[in-house]
Structures are given as C-alpha cells and as structure tokens.
C-alpha cells in the first residue's frame, strides 16, 4: 500500500461523468444511505455525535462534489459544483477510484493519508469517526442498493468488477491524468490514530 500513487480517471470517463449532477444523483444516494441506516443502524451509531457533521467528498477527477450528512435514516447526500462555497465540517479530497476503494475496504485509509493521495481538511475527530465506522461496516455495493440474496451477490460481483476495471484504467499511463488533490490554505488533517 505504501507505493500507492495518486490516480485520476481517464479523460473519456471524466467526460461521461460530466452530466451526472443533472440527474437526481443526490436523491438516489440519500435514499440508499437511509435504507442502509434502516437495515444496519449500528454503522451509524459508531459515527456517534459526528453523524450530523457535513462531510464534503471531493473526487478530484469529477466536476462536482458530494455533501454527505450521515445522520442515519435522516441522512442526506447532495451534489454540489466543484468550487461552490458550501459550509462543511470536513472535506475529503482524492481520486475517485481511491475514494471508492476506501468505501469498499480495498484500500487502507492510513496509507492513503500517509502518502497524501487523499487530503482531509476540517475536524479530525469527525474524519476518524467516519473512517472507523466505514472500516467496520464492510460495505458492499448491494448494501447501498438494498439488494439481498442472489441479486445482491450478482450486483456486488458486477459493480466490484467495474470498480476494479476503473482502477486499472486510472493507473494505466495512457489514461492517467494529473489528479492533484484540492489545494487551498484551509486547515487540513489526517485521520490517523496516535500510537501510544
């Protein structure tokens, strides 16, 4: 994991992702997170008092960001334009495939922060709580889609394969684009636990 390098989506895929904010992506994701909260409330209990915090998730290779309030069955996800000034408690930025890798547990958050593949600004305690909750949740795509049984297993297989393909495309030199983490001068943080 230590040799993990920042990656970006290939240009054609970036282009295809452009109209996504025009679709009701926020509504669909909000419903998905709420469904997850109804089925697995423990995931959100683990986030504790930070569940009402506003987490801005900023994939550096998309033109828009996500604003997540992981408040259980009252959770909300909105898409917001890339540079829009929106109040948030935390901003997590990085290449989309790496952010997805954190969600499905393929990538180690500590290593990504150590190597600065991912940047975080805002409240360290909220990031640590979210990171630990996601880490424990062992989320699969079917969890978010609310699918169970054979349908869930098939969805997991297909979606995880698609993400793996995306990751491969993003790492191939020809498809790679610079994916600088969002800059700026606001305080940034890294969600490591200290080692006492």
């Amino acid at each position, binding site marked *: *994991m*230590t040799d993990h390098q920042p990656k970006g989506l290939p240009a054609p895929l970036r282009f295809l992702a452009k109209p996504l904010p025009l679709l009701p992506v926020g509504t669909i994701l909000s419903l998905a997170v709420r469904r997850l909260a109804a089925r697995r409330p*423990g995931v959100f*209990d*683990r*986030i*504790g008092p*930070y569940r009402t915090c506003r987490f801005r998730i900023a994939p550096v290779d998309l033109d828009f960001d996500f604003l997540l309030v992981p408040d259980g069955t009252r959770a909300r996800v909105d898409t917001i334009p890339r540079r829009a000034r929106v109040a948030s408690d935390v901003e997590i930025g990085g290449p989309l495939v790496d952010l997805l890798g954190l969600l499905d*547990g393929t990538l*180690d*958050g*500590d290593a990504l*922060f*150590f*190597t*600065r593949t991912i940047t975080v*600004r805002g*409240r*360290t*305690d*909220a*990031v*640590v*709580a*979210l*990171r*630990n*909750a996601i*880490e*424990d*949740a*062992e989320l699969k795509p079917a969890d978010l889609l609310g699918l169970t049984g054979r349908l869930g297993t098939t969805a997991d297989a297909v979606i995880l394969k698609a993400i793996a393909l995306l990751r491969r495309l993003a790492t191939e030199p020809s498809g790679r684009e610079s994916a600088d983490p969002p*800059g*700026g*001068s*606001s*305080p*940034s*943080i*890294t*969600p*490591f*636990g*200290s*080692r*006492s």
Partner: protein
Amino acid sequence: MSLELVCPAGTPSALRAAVEAGAHSVYCGFRDETNARNFPGLNFSPDELVDGIRFAHRHGAKVLVAINTFVRAGHPTAWIKALANAEGAGADAVILADIALLDHAKRHHPSLRLHLSVQAAAATPEAIQFYAEAFDVKRVVLPRVLSVEEIAALAKEITVETEAFVFGGLCPMAEGRCSLSSYATGKSPNLTGVCSPPEHVTYTDDAEGTTAKLARFTIERFGAGEPAGYPTLCKGRFIAEGKTGHWFEDPVSLNAAELIRPLAKAGVTALKIEGRQRGKGYVAEVVAAFRAAVDAIAAGRDDPDTAKRLAGLTEGGKQTAGAYKKTWR
C-alpha cells in the same frame, strides 16, 4: 509450547480479521474512557463484545478486554461497569492498570483472570510480584523499556506469565507515566484513553508545505509531497538551542520479528501486536505474518523472514527493535 499471539482489534470486523488470520488471542476495549484507545468510532459496545467473544471462542481464540486507564477520582462507575460487562460477555481475561480497579476485580470478580497492563509500567521483579501477590495477577504486559537479557533475568524472578510487544507503534516514555498529551490538550492515554486526541489536531497548508499542530503546539512541518504522519507529541520535530530534531523519539515503529526466538528463550509467554487504531487489512497482514513465524519457530524451522515481510507496514517505513536491543547503555 508455542508462543501465544495477542492481536489488536479496534472494531468487530478487525476482531474477525485477527481471528481468521490466526490470532491465539485478541484484545479490545469498550467504547469509552475505560480503555487506552478511546478514539472516535473505535471500540466495542457491550453487545458487540458478546458477539465478538462468541465468534472468537467458536474459532478457538481468546478475548482479552483492556480496561486499562486509571479510574477518574470519585467517578468509578464506568470502570466498575466495564469489569462486569467483560465478565458477563465471557472475556478470557481483563487487562488492568489501576490498583483500585485490580482490588475491585479481585474482590467482586474472583473468577476473572487478571492481566497487568503495560500502563502499570511494572518492570521490576518487586513491582510485578506485588501485583501477583496482592491481586492474583496472572500475566504482566512488559513495558517497552527492557532488553531481551533483562527480560530473561526478570522472568526467572517472577511467578507470572509475561507478554512482550513485538510490533507496532511505540510509546517511548514509560507507559502510564507520560504527561505530554495532558500538558498540551488536557487529555491523556492514562486518564481519558487517548494520546494526542484528534479533536486537537490540525494541519495547515501554505506555500512551504504543511504544518501539523496539536492544540497550540506546532509538532511537525512537512515539505510539499513529503509523507505526512500523525502529530503525536513525543514524535514531533522541535527546535531547541538552535538545532532541529526529534528530541523525544524518532517516528519509528517497533518490529521485533527477528527476536521471536530470543524472546521465547527468555521465557516470554505471549507476543503482543500493537494497533487497535489500525484497519483490518493491517491487522490481518501482521497477524498472519507473525502466526507463520510463531508456528515455524515452534516446529523448529527458521523464521520465514517476517521482519522483511512486515517492513512496509511500519510507520513511514522506519522500524526499530527498540529497547530489546539496547545500544545506548
């Protein structure tokens, strides 16, 4: 007899990962100030502990519950409850540091096996035997200040089992005695269960790089693109008398994999891996590597190059055998 491998679990999924990777024992704590890894989103609810212990026992592994902070004066309820919850969940042992809590455990939970936490900083035969005789402690987790030779000499003079850290983050001060975090933030691993707590951590970017601060203290500055780390006070880089350096401790991890055989020969009962705040991927990889090493050595084979296998998982890739190979005395 094979060495017992004691492995960290900050969450139920890490517990399952540790057990599946071959942990003989897993240690974990409750989600409050009663354990020394009280980070947001980490640790177990009483119900999660019940499930975790059931899972571990089904796979032949033990669960040791760390209740290893010092009781807040006049407010012992959380610690007393934690002891009762650990016993109720079927814990195989509890890991304690506070003398009052050890006394309470001995009186009210006589069948609960007691281990002495590293937080108690018991490093002499006299101190260890006091805990053994007064509270019937069965095992001591050794402070990371002893050489292998010192452990061998110590083991001959005590009547309890010993557990030695072999991998992970280092707390270079004598455990339970460090007040750096309290001084900077008002919170410490000893009392609130967290050193350099994340709500006091900030990183600020400017043209020259990133400044890491703990409360009002600048701990470290990283150049642009230079790997970052967590601003634990003792690992900070400071300027003193015109010189810049890691004056307390270099930011390195302990990796004593090459010392498994000498530690076994010194009479150590169990090897402990640090890292309850680390992810399950890390836990699984470190546990699997150490289990292979412990099994190989128990079978009389060579160590399968564990130190090398794990080098990539140490903090910033830097590692040390710590006090086990003391070169400064």
